[in-house]
């Protein structure tokens, strides 16, 4: 056989270093394809291979979808674990922050569509991502959006299994997580997508809480405090106490906050941001909504989406 794993890829430059991995850019020697190599340091962890690395490998091995980052190869060298990933030069956060780019409603629709398709695929495979945010939605040179960073992902739990509510980056955390629920579902990912949708329209983070307590306040001030009326049994969740009761925003108030949004866009956003996870839309409802189906404009083709104006 030809090349051993380590010679199949070249490492050109180091682009990042995290707590458990170093990322290099490089090429697949035989094809010249650009790739990123995530080298996971195995030796330094007291408890063996790190849980995030285990999750990442575990789930990426199973998920094959155009809107999920591709795990090209896994190999070990010098006792380190190497994940060979497709090369993705930008992420949605960088695009949102790039003030020189104007978004059209069709662009926003396109990014949201790709996000929902990728997450739909995860959910059909019983996998929760649990850390969706613009920074984890990577963009390929051809404009395709790819869901990345499965370090917090997990399989949908068994019926009685406890889950940790300490997941999802704060600003994108669903109310059931803010209340410390031990049982939750795919709906946590859909909330995060709703917040990302809002952020794409506003061009600033929608609910930027400064700490966990403040996040609760910021969230409910914008979207109303859940009560037994709209969410039966919510008051039995561990974190449900000492809440200021805010009313749910009227449609008119939402229109004022999201000036450019059409009625179907607001329908979709409200569906994704239902306080009660049981009422929140799932990926299928979202993908089949009027926003994507009937309403113009059609989503921008990925290759025509705006790209970063500044190169690093």
């Amino acid at each position, binding site marked *: 056989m030809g090349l051993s794993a380590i010679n199949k890829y070249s490492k050109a430059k180091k682009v990042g270093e995290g707590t458990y991995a170093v990322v290099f850019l490089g090429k697949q020697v035989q094809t010249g394809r650009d790739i990123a190599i995530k080298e996971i340091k195995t030796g330094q962890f007291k408890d063996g291979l790190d849980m995030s690395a285990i999750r990442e490998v575990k789930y990426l091995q*199973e998920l094959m979808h155009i809107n999920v980052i591709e795990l090209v190869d896994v190999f070990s060298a010098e006792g380190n674990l190497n994940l060979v990933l497709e090369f993705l030069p930008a992420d949605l956060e960088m695009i949102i922050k790039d003030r020189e780019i104007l978004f059209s409603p069709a662009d926003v629709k396109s990014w949201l569509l790709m996000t929902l398709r990728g997450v739909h695929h995860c959910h059909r495979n019983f996998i929760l991502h649990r850390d969706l945010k613009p920074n984890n939605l990577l963009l390929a040179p051809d404009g395709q959006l790819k869901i990345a960073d499965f370090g917090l992902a997990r*399989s949908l739990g068994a019926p009685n299994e406890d889950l940790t509510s300490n997941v999802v980056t704060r600003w994108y955390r669903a109310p059931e997580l803010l209340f410390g629920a031990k049982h939750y579902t795919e709906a946590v990912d859909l909330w995060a997508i709703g917040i990302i949708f809002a952020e794409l329209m506003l061009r600033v983070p929608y609910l930027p809480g400064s700490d966990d307590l403040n996040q609760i306040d910021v969230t409910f001030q914008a979207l109303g405090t859940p009560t037994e009326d709209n969410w039966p049994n919510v008051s039995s969740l561990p974190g449900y106490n000492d809440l200021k009761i805010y009313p749910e925003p009227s449609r008119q108030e939402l229109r004022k906050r999201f000036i450019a949004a059409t009625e179907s866009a607001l329908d979709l956003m409200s569906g994704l941001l239902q306080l009660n996870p049981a009422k929140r839309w799932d990926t299928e409802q979202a993908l089949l909504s009027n926003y994507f189906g009937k309403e113009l404009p059609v989503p921008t083709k990925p290759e025509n989406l705006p790209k970063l104006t500044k190169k690093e």
Partner: protein
Amino acid sequence: MSQRVTFDELYRRSTQYRKWSFTKEELLNKRIQINSKGCAKVDERLNQLKDQIEPNSIEKVTIDEELKLISFHSRRIGMLAKHFNMPSQVRATAISFLRKFYLVNSVMEYHPKLVLLTCLFLAAKSENYFISINSFSKRIPKTTPESILSLEFEILQSLEFTLLTHHPFRPLYGFFFDLQDVLKDEMKPNELGKIYDDARKLIDEALISDAVYHFTPPQIALACLKEINNDIILKYLSKKFKPNKLDTVKEKDEEDDDEQNETIKPTIENELTQSMYEKIVATVEECQKFIRNGENPTKEQATEIDRKVQYCLNPSLILKRKRENTTDINGDSNGIKKQKTDSI
């Protein structure tokens, strides 16, 4: 919606199907290959000691013995997981890791009694049931954190870094609900509850059998149920797949109206479901045979194989034994002397 990927297609994309499902012939060939790889390793070791040991003084382990030993240690995983109070998912995944490891390596290369511990530790992490290596090792005599961790990477490599394992527990739970629904006029819920509980216990046997390499988790779940109560499951399957009632036929007609010509449809529909019913029953019954025929060696058998493996892994033990025998004769070993006095 015609482009929608079915659950069957999704399963075919899983690593469990792509990498860890085999025909009987493939599985047998794998095991033959691994066993001879193991034997070759033993020969290598013997070769290094050729001045001291006769090459045929060490008895190698056969394929059948390998399987018995692995099955014995798979069952030990079950006990150990219970000791740690780990969920069934962890137990099942650890067993699956151990058995897959020995589809790549021979017991003459790595002793399962060590590999099983690392498999359990790794499975706990992979199934989100983290336990620190120190507290894990502390509760298992004669281990150190290092001894357990040292095999982790070896195991990950043998698994080709595929860690997601689909077990029959979830489909079994699904069938339990569907059974209640389909048989609601004929069965009391607690009767079905008993069948479900017994079938769930039987899954542990299935996990140690080769059924996991030839059948999907729902097929295995159904086989376990049918093994517990044949009549009920046949009744359930015939209700689901045989349209013997007029109204069922009618309902199906309406659903598929635009797809098929109405005049010829009922017969085709009948034949289709009849052949589907027969196919499912045949598949499930084939699966039952595998579950029944899982290895279950006695402790004595396992100890005997274990002894052979020890020598295969470390042929110089023979020299040690010879030396001990000699000292025994000379009578200058305290331990042995004491034993002798004791026995007298």
